[in-house]
């Protein structure tokens, strides 16, 4: 009979932790060495909601044109309709250089 393994669940999920890491990285790059917990949490939540909403909107634009695989046009429409400026993105990636956040190492479950 297999032993029931206790899996430690961290209080926030790994994806969200990486989101807040990204926000922290942006803050440090801009020269903010400290941020209140509330600020960090607000910005993290905004980033998460932004991703979900862009995904949702792109998906809807895609289905509206009778397709299932989203194209760059769908994403573009979603971004523009949400008021994000897409014309300045190429200057942005040329100007700002970031060190990408690595994915945390895959954890292998310990069996005893």
């Amino acid at each position, binding site marked *: 009979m297999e032993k029931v393994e206790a899996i430690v669940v961290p209080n926030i999920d790994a*994806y969200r932790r*990486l*989101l807040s890491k*990204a*926000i922290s*990285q*942006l*803050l440090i*790059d*801009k*020269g*903010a*060495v*400290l*941020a*209140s917990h*509330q*600020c960090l949490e*607000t*910005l993290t939540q*905004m*980033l*998460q909601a*932004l*991703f*979900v*909403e*862009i*995904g*949702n*909107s*792109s*998906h809807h634009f895609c289905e509206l044109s009778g397709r299932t*695989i*989203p194209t*760059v*046009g769908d*994403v*573009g*429409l979603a*971004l*523009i309709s949400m008021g*994000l*400026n*897409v*014309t*300045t*993105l*190429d200057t*942005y*990636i040329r100007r*700002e250089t*970031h060190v*990408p*956040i*690595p*994915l945390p190492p895959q954890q292998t479950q310990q069996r005893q």
Partner: protein
Amino acid sequence: GNSGERVTSSSHHLSDFLLQLEDYTPLLPDAVTSHYLNMGGFQADDKRLVRLISIAAQKYMSDIIDDALQHSKARTHMQNVNTPGGSKAKDRKFTLTMEDLQPALADYGINVRKMDYSQ
């Protein structure tokens, strides 16, 4: 109309931009971005689309943080001017608080309000 043309030219611009994203890594790993996009029902095989969204969101957040820090700079500058003999130290280190983030977000049309029960 005019706005329609603008959208079309933006889309052309965007598909050219997409070609550059093959070897550009955004701040967030693609897996994280895809996870949240999937929550909104978005499923794409093309990782360049994921990167495009990631960069757009990254720029948006970075603009907001910039604005908030501008507010912070303006406020601390005012304080230094008002207090005689105040620290004129030009340390370019800032602390971000809700006091500065709130007006910056208000400029973007986002209303942040602390609930009565929160501490």
